[in-house]
């Protein structure tokens, strides 16, 4: 229903701006409702509902659009939106598969900071190759293939992992 969407939208907008500020201190981001441009032939698109545009500005920069963000900046912006939507409609668990891959050390720190906050009320399963992300986890389990082609689960302590 229309009222429901606009209430959710307002909440999401607010949380998105908040989490983005935690990932990009001094930066600014918001969502904008945009009407769909008429098709090439001038026909109105027929879609009554407006779409959602994302504006994200890392600190000190003057970007024209999110297509100019770097690989890591894009991932961090997408995470801010993901975590914002989790904050307004929490689910009991969340599975994240190597979402930290493009991030540098500093941004891994920011990502894991917010992650720890969210994990107070939900289970987070985070697949990662990054030692820093592993180091903040409450528990760790390993997947191995001692027998080629057959996966086994083993419990792992952080100390077990070979040093970089």
């Amino acid at each position: 229903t229309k009222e429901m969407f606009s209430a959710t939208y307002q909440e999401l907008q607010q949380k998105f701006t908040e989490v983005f500020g935690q990932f990009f201190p001094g930066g600014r981001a918001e969502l904008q409702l945009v009407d769909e441009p008429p098709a090439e032939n001038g026909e109105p698109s027929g879609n009554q509902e407006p779409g959602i545009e994302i504006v994200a500005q890392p600190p000190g920069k003057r970007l024209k659009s999110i297509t100019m963000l770097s690989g890591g900046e894009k991932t961090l912006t997408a995470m801010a939106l993901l975590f914002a939507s989790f904050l307004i409609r929490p689910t009991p668990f969340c599975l994240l598969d190597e979402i930290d891959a493009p991030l540098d050390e500093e941004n891994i720190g920011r990502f894991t900071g917010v992650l720890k906050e969210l994990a107070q009320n939900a289970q987070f399963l985070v697949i990662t190759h990054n030692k820093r992300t592993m180091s903040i986890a409450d528990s760790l389990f390993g997947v191995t293939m001692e027998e080629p082609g057959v996966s086994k689960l083993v419990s792992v302590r952080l100390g077990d992992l070979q040093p970089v």
Partner: protein
Amino acid sequence: MHLKSMNMMGFKSFAEAKIEFPEGVTAVVGPNGSGKSNVVDAILWVLGEQSTKTLRSEKMEDVIFNGTELRKPLGMAEVSLVIGGLDPAMMKLDGGSGLPSELTEAQEMMITRRLYRNGESEYLINKIHCRLKDIRSLLLDTRAGSKGHTVIAQGQIDQILNASPQDRRELIEETA
């Protein structure tokens, strides 16, 4: 509601394995190709995932353990997920499913999905046969089924940024 444990038999590279799910943040680690993303696929599958593309397969039978140089392929894949901390008042099983009412009193529930090589599939709640619809309606009340931000598959995080404004609206509505 929380994930308690999961038992996989013949699902992708897991011939037979069991996981206990702790609270808080759990890091899943291991070499490339060892089976980490297959754990995510197992959770999606037992919760009713129907898209083979989401499960990185060409047809649904590809999720059944295909054998190795030393082992034969298996004839069936089975995943059972135990969900704990349920609030019985929340569980509105629709009368039509014929599932026994004590299910609605339980604190815990086990959801099972099976697939045979011949394409036949089965769904069970606490070892009692049911329909996918029953699992879906159970999950709806616990918000465990909602896809929106529950699962981010490998390489998919930038999807929401690259989507069109219209598609983003739909993705966000799914969450609402």
